């Protein structure tokens, strides 16, 4: 029953996202093709304030405590989490038609899980595997041409778009082998609480790596909500375009008419 509700919810989101994507393109082509509508701004700002409060009370202190751990422990934890994320990256590589990357990532996962002892050591990096790039179902939907839809700020989880939120639902509808094994796997090694722990650890690890950056951004922002929104949307746009080396092309038109010399 839960699955049916989730599927219906996701279909609804994707349908509205496809429409929003098309509308957005037509309207914004006159202004800014990269702009994403903030349809629920007042709710989003309230949700953002809630998250900021939670960050001050829970996430930031926990991340600070995590930073006290020896760097070898933090690196090992981070490596395990990255290794687990490749279970979602690999099917998305395939869905995006990038079979070569899928093959490389399968190799990386096998090497790091076995020789690297459950991913604690990034042996693949030492073996000169290409740099790892995470992929998720939101990116795949974007690569398939589904528009981002409206920008949303989810309580606790943070910034997203309608498309990316729908993409996250795919994980728990069978798209994440780690979730399937730990929640429906009927095995004695993995449980739902272990899955939840790794998700929480992923958040803590991210926050700990960005303690100063986020503080600095907050201190120097005129509108912190708008800054976070801009950074999130730029990041997603870059990841969907797989535009590591060609980022400048995305914004080229904006600069052309500025003449100050």
């Amino acid at each position, binding site marked *: 029953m839960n699955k049916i509700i989730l599927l219906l919810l996701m279909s609804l989101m994707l349908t509205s996202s496809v429409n929003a994507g098309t509308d957005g393109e037509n309207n914004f082509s006159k*202004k800014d093709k990269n702009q994403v509508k903030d349809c629920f701004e007042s709710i989003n700002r309230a949700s953002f304030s809630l998250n900021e409060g939670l960050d001050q009370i829970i996430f930031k202190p926990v991340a600070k405590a995590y930073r006290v751990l020896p*760097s070898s422990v933090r690196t090992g934890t981070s490596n395990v989490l990255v290794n687990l994320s490749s279970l979602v990256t690999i099917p998305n590589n395939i869905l995006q038609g990038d079979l070569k990357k899928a093959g490389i990532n399968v190799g990386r996962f096998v090497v790091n899980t076995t020789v690297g002892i459950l991913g604690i050591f990034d042996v693949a990096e030492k073996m000169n595997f290409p740099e790892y790039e995470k992929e998720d179902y939101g990116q795949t939907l974007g690569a398939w041409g589904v528009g981002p839809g409206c920008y949303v700020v989810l309580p606790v989880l943070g910034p997203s778009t309608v498309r990316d939120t729908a993409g996250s639902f795919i994980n728990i509808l069978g798209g994440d082998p780690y979730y399937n094994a730990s929640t429906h796997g009927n095995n004695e090694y993995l449980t739902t609480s272990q899955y939840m722990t790794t998700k929480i650890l992923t958040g803590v690890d991210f926050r700990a*790596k960005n303690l*100063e950056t986020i503080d*600095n951004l907050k*201190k*120097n*922002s*005129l*509108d912190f*909500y*708008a*800054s976070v*929104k*801009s*950074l999130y949307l*730029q*990041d997603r746009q*870059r990841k969907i375009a797989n*535009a*590591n080396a060609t*980022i*400048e092309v995305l*914004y*080229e038109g*904006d*600069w*052309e008419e*500025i*003449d*100050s*010399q």
Partner: protein
Amino acid sequence: MSSKKILTTISFLIIFFLNIEKVYSIEPDVFVQSTVNRAAKTLGGNLTKKERIDKLKEIASETVDINGIGYYTLGTYRKNINDKQIKQYELLFEQYFLKSFSSRLAEYSNPEIEVVSKKKINENYTMVSSILVSTEQRPEVKIDWRIYTKNPENPKIRDLIIEGLSLARTQKEEFSSIIQSNDGDINALFSTLKEFIK
């Protein structure tokens, strides 16, 4: 002097002046490396926080196209404001930018930045790629620099793209959000900038 000699001298002078721009042009990657070396020297030296910020402001004033970034940041709104408002904006933006920029950088101590490559986009822009070398506390960070090269003798920084995220674009969207949430009133932006500069 024979007419042949005069002709040779004139030809030499013409060629010299035609090439003078090339002689004095500064390569964007060399410009970035020398700028980051100056900043690193400031951040690594035994200066007080105030001295450090003042020195960073001085470097930014010389190497960053603050007016260009200011116009870009204002986006389409710059077409709807009068000359007096433009002047006011230029003054406020410069103070805002220098405070924000130096404050962001002052947090780093001994940053080691290595320029790795450059890519000419067109006559006006070259992207210079660099790496902020990792430390115990943070991983390696990729930083791309958008260099405005319209005047090759005096290249200027127009944007910093950190791990693919453009600072100028973030700033532009932030400014736009402030103006939009105040029904398009540019004075709301001016007030926010004044508040930040205080």
